[in-house]
Structures are given as structure tokens and as C-alpha cells.
């Protein structure tokens, strides 16, 4: 008991209409990595926001280092040694690496002005402490990959010498190697006595890293257990509350009607990409982060200009390619970053859903047919099981999985035949993922062609009818998921060849 650093006891929190947390106990020991898991809406974020001081608890007791806390602000919590790294990282994009590490703690010279040299030198030290030497601290953060940005965020937080570090979904946008690197850093920190709370949806991460697991569901504590005493199957059962069958979704398909044909596509980050996508199939495009998957999708949809190559939908060859033309030719895109590209967060579900297929619901896009709009949206909300009280609810207030479904519903309103999904399951919980997989196949069964882009190799193999593996802007392997396995696909994704397996 003495080694408990932080203890939260019977925490409850009510929001209008929702009991977000009910009598939740949560504690962390010195030097442990504690996984906090649960589906979207289980109460993980609420619990962490109470801890960080963004929300205030309705009742319960919080003890930090043996002292009971009454009411605190985010800044106080940081000062007491409890630091957070959120999924969005929250770095200021237009500032340099060094500035981001020292915002709020800027080194000053005797005149009260910022001492830029000291700031740069200390930033380099802070990065070196987590084993990062390749970053120029003068680089603006917006020039860095997500993985590098995350290293900056970690360097920033660790430089404040926290006793507890909380990470929210840290690997959701990282490739294999970057995730490995992160794990190594976290283990090193653990050895130095840092306690880590690790929030994630990825089972493999939980078992690779954590010492203990706490599962929340519907705002209640389900179980806290040592990791080695809680097998994966049981863990998922606790999270979902019912048995989920782990099934493979893909199957061998008859390929007759060609929907999308791409030959010799070149462009920024893409060096010769070929694709044949047929009706009724789900094709996976796998690869590590940075392999050129998103770039390919952007070229296919006409967002970026290709330098070479032919894109053909049905019999139509797309010249002067723009997103508008892609849409009218029957293409639909659910982009990687739904918050910025796929969804109008401050508009209602209904407005988002009817946006792309507006002509269907309004004569000349001017005179809306509200009744038709409402019935269609309601039908889609039910069909996709979007969890929302009203169709007029703002998209911002939905969970990640439900936001993704709204983007999907938008395209279901159009007459699209070719669907491009770029990382649709990022930040989505187990059950939400299963629903999205099912929807992809429903689309295919209705005659659409689906291109499913993911950096989660396991997921790609599980979901798709056939998969293409991309590395450095090129397809390096075409695999049948039923005859391949994760090791083989991962190897291709890292630029290796199958001989190395033996």
C-alpha cells in the first residue's frame, strides 16, 4: 500500500443526462505502467480530465503522494508532477521544437528576455535524454511527422520531471518502428521510477507494456488486475460486456466488373502505383506510416496533382482530375484526419450526412426537401448504429467511432461506387471497429469496390479480401490474407523480402 503514488476513490461525475462516472476506484503504484482501457464513452477521458483538473469531480477522494487534494487547476496538477500527453499532442505547429519544449518555462536572461541559446541547448539535452539525436531543435513542428512530434511532446513533458505520466492512445498514428521506439523510451522511464498511465485500444500494446490493467465500462469500474492474470479474451469480454467472436471478414471473390483501374501513378511520395479494384471486393492497402498510402489516396481522389499515370473509373478516364470530378465519377473518400478533412464538427449530423449528396435532398441545391432529408438521415443513423440522441446533434460531441460513421453515412447518400477509406479505425474502440469492418463488406456486397488503407497490418489481413503492401511509394507485395500472415506482411511493409524469414 505504501508504494501508491496516486489514488482515486469512488469518483463520480454527472453530466446533464449522463452518469459519466460512478464510484470508480483507480490507483497507480510507483514505477508501474498501468493500462486504462475501455470503449469510447466508457469514462476513461472523463476520469483523466478530472485528474488533470479540466473537470471537477462531483464526489470521491483523490490522494496524491499521501495528501488528499480538494480542488485543482491543470497548471497545479502539472506542478505537482502529474503530466499528460493527449492524443492530439497539443504542440503549437508554427513554433520550433525548442520553443514547444519550453513554452511556459522559457529560460530568461537577466533582462527578462528569452535566452534563445540556452533554450536550444536545453532542448537538445531534453531530446538526448530520451535518445533522440536526429531532430534539429530549430525546425518548426509542422515540418515533422506525427511520430517525431510525439517525441517532442514526450521530451517536453519528461523535462518537467513528472512522477506520473499519462499517455492517451500514443501509438494510434505511429508506424511499427516508431511504436517500438516509444515503448523503449517508456520502459527506460519506468526503470527510473516514473509511473505511467497508458490509455489504449490496442490489445497488443497492453500486453507488451503494462503491469496492471484497469477496465472501465459505461462509467463503472469493471476490474483492476495484474496484466499476466488477465488473458486477452477475458479482457475484451470485460471491455465489451459480451462475447465477441474474432472473425475474419474477407473471402475470395469473383472478380469480374472492373471499377477502378490505375496504371503507373506517380506523384509526390508515390513512385509507380498500379491498382485494379473490382466490384464487390475489399482491397487492403497496407504499409507503415510514411509508405505513401495517404499520398496515393490523395492522388486517386484528385486532391494532389499526379505527375504521371492513368486513372480510370469504369470506362471513364479521369483527365484534369479534381475531387469534384472524382465524386461525380462515383468515388468517395473517408480521409485519415476526419476532424479536419472529413467532417464539419460544428454542424449537425444531419447537415454532414446530406452534404455530398445535396442534390438528392434539394431541388437545384436551393429548395430542401426536409422530410426526405430527415427520413434518410434517420435511416442511416439506425443502419450504421450511430449513437446519438438527435440527428441535430453537433458532430463535435460524438465519439471518434461515431464521427467516422457520420463520414461514412455522408458517402452512402451519394451514388458512389468506389470507396477509399484512409485509416478509418484510428481512435475507434473494439466494437466500433467491428461495426466499421462489417459496413465495408456490406458496401462491397452491394456492388461497390472498397479500398481500405491501414497501417495496422493485422487489421488489414483480418478485414480484406486481398491486400497490397506498400513501401516507399510502391507496391512491394500482393498477398492473399488467408495464405499470408502478419509476419510476412510486416516484413514487406518494412522493406524486407521473404527470404529473411528463414
Amino acid at each position, binding site marked *: 500500500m505504501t508504494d501508491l503514488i496516486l489514488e482515486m476513490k469512488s469518483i463520480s461525475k454527472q453530466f446533464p443526462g449522463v452518469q459519466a462516472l460512478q464510484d470508480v476506484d483507480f490507483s497507480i503504484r510507483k514505477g508501474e505502467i498501468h493500462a486504462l482501457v475501455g470503449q469510447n464513452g466508457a469514462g476513461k477521458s472523463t476520469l483523466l480530465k478530472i485528474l488533470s483538473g479540466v473537470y471537477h469531480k462531483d464526489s470521491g477522494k483523490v490522494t496524491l503522494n499521501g495528501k488528499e487534494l480538494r480542488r485543482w487547476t*491543470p*497548471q497545479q496538477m*502539472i506542478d505537482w508532477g502529474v503530466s*499528460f500527453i*493527449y492524443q*492530439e499532442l*497539443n*504542440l*503549437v*505547429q*508554427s*513554433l520550433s521544437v525548442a*520553443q514547444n519544449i519550453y*513554452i*511556459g518555462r*522559457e529560460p*530568461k536572461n537577466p533582462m*527578462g*528576455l*528569452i535566452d534563445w541559446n540556452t533554450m536550444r541547448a536545453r532542448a537538445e539535452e531534453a531530446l538526448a535524454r530520451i535518445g533522440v539525436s536526429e531532430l534539429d531543435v530549430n525546425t518548426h513542428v509542422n515540418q515533422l511527422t506525427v511520430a517525431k512530434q510525439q517525441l517532442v511532446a514526450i521530451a517536453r513533458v519528461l523535462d518537467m520531471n513528472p512522477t506520473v505520466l499519462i499517455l492517451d492512445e500514443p501509438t494510434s498514428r505511429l508506424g511499427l518502428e516508431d511504436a517500438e521506439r516509444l515503448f523503449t523510451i517508456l520502459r527506460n522511464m519506468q526503470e527510473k521510477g516514473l509511473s505511467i498511465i497508458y490509455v489504449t485500444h490496442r490489445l497488443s500494446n497492453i500486453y507488451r507494456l503494462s503491469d496492471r490493467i484497469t477496465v472501465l465500462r459505461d462509467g463503472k469500474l469493471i476490474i483492476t488486475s495484474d496484466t499476466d492474470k488477465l488473458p486477452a479474451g477475458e479482457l475484451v469480454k470485460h471491455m465489451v460486456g459480451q462475447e465477441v467472436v474474432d472473425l475474419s471478414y474477407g473471402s475470395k471473390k469473383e472478380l469480374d466488373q472492373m471499377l477502378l483501374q490505375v496504371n503507373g501513378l506517380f506523384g509526390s511520395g508515390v513512385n509507380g502505383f498500379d491498382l485494379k479494384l473490382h466490384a464487390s471486393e475489399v482491397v487492403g492497402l497496407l504499409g507503415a506510416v510514411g509508405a505513401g498510402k495517404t499520398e496515393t489516396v490523395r492522388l486517386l481522389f484528385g486532391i494532389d496533382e499526379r505527375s504521371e499515370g492513368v486513372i480510370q473509373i469504369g470506362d471513364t478516364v479521369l483527365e484534369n482530375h479534381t475531387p469534384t470530378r472524382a465524386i461525380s465519377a462515383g468515388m468517395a473518400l473517408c480521409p485519415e484526419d476526419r476532424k479536419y478533412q472529413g467532417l464539419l464538427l460544428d454542424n449537425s449530423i444531419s447537415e454532414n450526412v446530406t452534404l455530398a449528396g445535396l442534390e438528392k435532398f434539394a431541388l437545384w441545391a436551393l429548395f430542401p426537401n426536409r422530410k426526405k432529408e430527415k427520413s434518410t438521415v434517420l435511416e442511416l443513423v439506425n443502419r450504421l448504429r450511430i449513437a446519438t440522441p438527435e440527428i441535430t446533434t453537433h458532430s463535435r460531441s460524438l465519439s471518434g467511432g461515431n464521427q467516422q460513421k457520420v463520414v461514412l453515412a455522408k458517402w452512402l447518400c451519394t451514388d458512389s461506387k468506389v470507396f477509399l477509406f484512409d485509416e478509418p479505425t484510428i481512435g475507434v474502440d473494439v466494437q466500433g471497429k467491428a461495426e466499421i469492418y462489417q459496413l465495408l463488406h456490406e458496401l462491397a456486397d452491394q456492388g461497390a469496390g472498397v479500398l481500405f488503407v491501414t497501417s495496422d497490418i493485422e487489421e488489414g489481413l483480418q478485414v480484406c479480401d486481398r491486400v497490397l503492401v506498400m513501401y516507399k511509394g510502391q507496391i512491394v507485395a500482393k498477398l492473399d490474407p488467408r495464405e499470408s500472415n502478419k509476419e510476412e506482411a510486416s516484413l514487406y511493409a518494412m522493406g524486407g523480402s521473404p527470404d529473411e524469414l528463414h
Partner: protein
Amino acid sequence: MNFTKEFVQKYTVFIILIVLFVIFSIASPTFMQVDNLMNLLVQSTILGIVGFGLVMIMIAGEIDLAFAGVIPFEGAIFATLLTNGRPFWVAALSTLAIGLLVSYVISLLVTRLKLVSFVSTIAMMFLLQGIWYAYTGGKNIYLEDYFNRDIVFGLVGAVPRVVILFAVIFIILYFLTEQTPFGLRLRIVGEDPESARTMGLNPIVYKTAGFLIGGAIFAIGAFLSTARMSGALATAGANMLMPVMTAAFVGQTVLGMSRPNIPGVLLAALLLGMINNAFVLLRLPFWSVPIAEGLILIIAIYLTNINKRDVVQISM
């Protein structure tokens, strides 16, 4: 190609400034005379100082157009107090106090009631212009007998005092915004309030500070414009609205910063002041000045956006 683009983007305002300077000095023999150059500086001064105030608020991610109402209103208070025989320092401090009060009210509207600053400060501008008419009965208040213009426009050597004031304010604000922790944080709050909050900075505090500093600088602008016209005039603010906004936006392009900044306003104010000055000397028709200003604003906004791929991105 990329290099040229970057170069052009960074130095356009400098280049325009130098090219026009050369053209003007060739075209008009009087342009290069010390008297005229000083006159040019004086003309840029008020524009530049009020522009500084606006940019302090823009750095915090907000905008305050109420200065077009605040400046005549503060001028009227200042003039009334002087004509009623109050000492100079009482009038000056009262003006400053009124300015801070108005800015504080605006900051409450924006940070507490979460109103959009663009719209709510336009509302505040109308409100104050109305109050000006009610307060003065619609008459300009002249100060010839009460106020010695030399306090502001007297020379130190060859340099008018107001130009020295301009330089001092510039240096203070430059260091404040670009070299101090406060300036860096103000910018972070303006650019990314969400991240600022998670880094433990309170956006409300910094935004309020931005409005108050801006308000204090507007009060200095009100004092200078009253001194320049020897009285509180109804048109004092409205005439300034567009040129000041132009200076603030053109200033964003300087050095390719693509963000509101103090040195940029200085250069932009000099540029606009020079155009005004030279076009008069060259006897160009009066309508050519707004045309030139309009063109420069368009070029500036284009250059601010040159590297951004999105269709339009004007941040207020």
C-alpha cells in the same frame, strides 16, 4: 523556383518600399528634403502606433475594430477636460483609464460571453461613435487655446518628438512580442488556444492582456490624433479604420512571417505614409491613393497565402 518564391515573399514589402522611395525621390525634388521626410514620418506615426495596438490584439488571436469609435471618444474626453481647465496630466490619465475600461469590457464580451471579436468590436465601434455624438452634441471640440502642439510635434534636433515616441514604442513592443516569454505565450494563445490550455497557459488571461495593451496604445493614438488636429473631431476614428487595418494586414507578410507582428506594422505604416505623402507632392489625383492602397493590400494577402494550399485563409 522555390527560392525565388520564398525570397519574394519575405522581402516584397521591403522591395516595394525601396523602389517607391527611389521613384519618388527622382520624380519629385522636394521628396528627399529633410522637412518632407520628417513630415512623412509624422504622417506614418499615428497610423503605425494605432496599428501596433491592433496587432497586439491580433497576436492574441482576436481583432478589435472598436478603435475607430474609441479614438474620437477618448479625444472628446481629453479635450473636454482640458477646456474645462483640468491639468494636462488629469486629462491624459483619464483618457487612458477610459481606454482601458472600454478594452476590458470588450475582453469580457470575447472571453466570458464568447462573442466573436470581429462582430462585437464593430458593434462597440458604433456604440462609441453614437456616444461621441451624444456627449459632444455633434460639435467638434477645438483646443487651439488650451494645448501647445509643441509638446508633441516640437523638434529635438531635426526630429519631431512624436517620431521619437514612435521609435520608443516600437522598440518596447518589438522586444515584448518577439523576445519575452509573455510575447511568445501571447502568440501561442492566439494561434492554438487548445494547446495553450494543455500547456498550462490560461487563454483568458493572455487574451485579456492583449486587449488591455492594445487599448492603452489606442489611448496614445487618440492623444496624438487630437494633438495633430488641435481638437477632438468626429472623423478622427472612421478615417483611420481602413488604413490601420491595411497596415496590420500588410505587416503580416513581412519576412514571410505570415502572422501579425510589430516590425511588419512599422514597415507597412511607412509604406502607406510614403504613398500618401508622395502622391500629394506629385500632384496625383486624390483617388489614386485609395487605389494604390487597395492594390497593395491585395498583393499582401496574396503573399501571406502563397505557401498555403487552401483556397482562402485570411485569419482575422
